[in-house]
């Protein structure tokens, strides 16, 4: 469990390299008062996310595993994409959990 926050973006970055034909990819960690968001956004070819969102388990292509990981932490995973306009994936988890994880690691 303690590997989860870093694992989702790592997997996502690997996917960007493999599939997206992106020229730019940004990894943004947003610390807020009560939650932490990790965003991975690229300017690649994107895809049509509705096709994925339609499946009740949250899609395929490793997104299911990513979503489960985040939801196990009471967080949410959002996937935003549009053909030709890149892809953004955002994982957001409550901050108390981040505290716990940090303490668990030390």
């Amino acid at each position, binding site marked *: 469990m303690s590997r989860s926050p870093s694992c989702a973006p790592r997997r996502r970055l690997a996917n960007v390299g493999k599939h997206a034909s992106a020229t*730019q990819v*940004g990894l*943004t960690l*947003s610390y*807020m*008062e*009560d*939650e932490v*968001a990790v*965003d991975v*956004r690229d300017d690649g070819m994107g895809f049509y996310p509705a096709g994925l*969102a339609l499946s*009740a388990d949250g899609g395929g292509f490793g997104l299911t595993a990513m979503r489960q990981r985040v*939801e196990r932490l*009471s967080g*949410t995973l*959002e996937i*935003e994409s549009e053909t030709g306009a890149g892809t*953004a*994936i*955002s994982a*957001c988890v*409550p901050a108390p959990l981040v505290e716990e994880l940090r303490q668990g690691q030390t």
Partner: protein
Amino acid sequence: MTSITEGNGPDGRRGESGGTGTGAPIRLLIADDHPVARDGLSGMLTADPGFEVLGEAADGAEAVRLAQALQPDVILMDLRMPEMDGVTAIAELARRGVSSRVLVLTTYDTDSHVLSAIEAGATGYLLKDAPQAELLRAVRAAARGEAVLSPSVATRLIGRVRSPDAGPLSQRELEVLELVAGGSTNREAAARLFVSEATVKTHLLHIYAKLGVSDRAAAVAEAFNRGLLTPSTKRP
């Protein structure tokens, strides 16, 4: 199935009788993106003759559609959902004049979520760790139009009334607000900051909570009032 045609709320029709076992059951809609949560709630509520579950929605947009079609007495609404989140759905219900009471049922008890849900028009705010009896009581109270708050949520609200300024905006929040003040949509602000729209929305919720407002126009106005933004503000 009854439908409300003249906008009278649940209290006008069946308020006092619902859920007591003597009158018509309280008619419910459950909105939660987790199937297990929906099934659990639905099973718990249908086991009680005082409640009738009319439908289930997996996201905010579906909740709004079903609420309009089914006109439930009470909507149990999760906040974090794909497509359209709970707060947006609550505001949309109010905008469309749907008179169903909304009882927020979520894992989040943070300031930004509580305040924006209540400002959007939620009747109550309950946490998912609430005991079953408390949940059933809360649904009955919400059907009567009474405000229901989990103790930790009530504490947060009281705290906010006593100290309305919830701290300064972070650098990032100011950046988001500057873009919004400049007319950017969430999508445009997200593209500019190279983050997801979801994160821009989250920043905005925090900004609303800190400024004590409930929409982007009011946030911009309040930020100018407080001198957080000035007409000459330019992004570097």
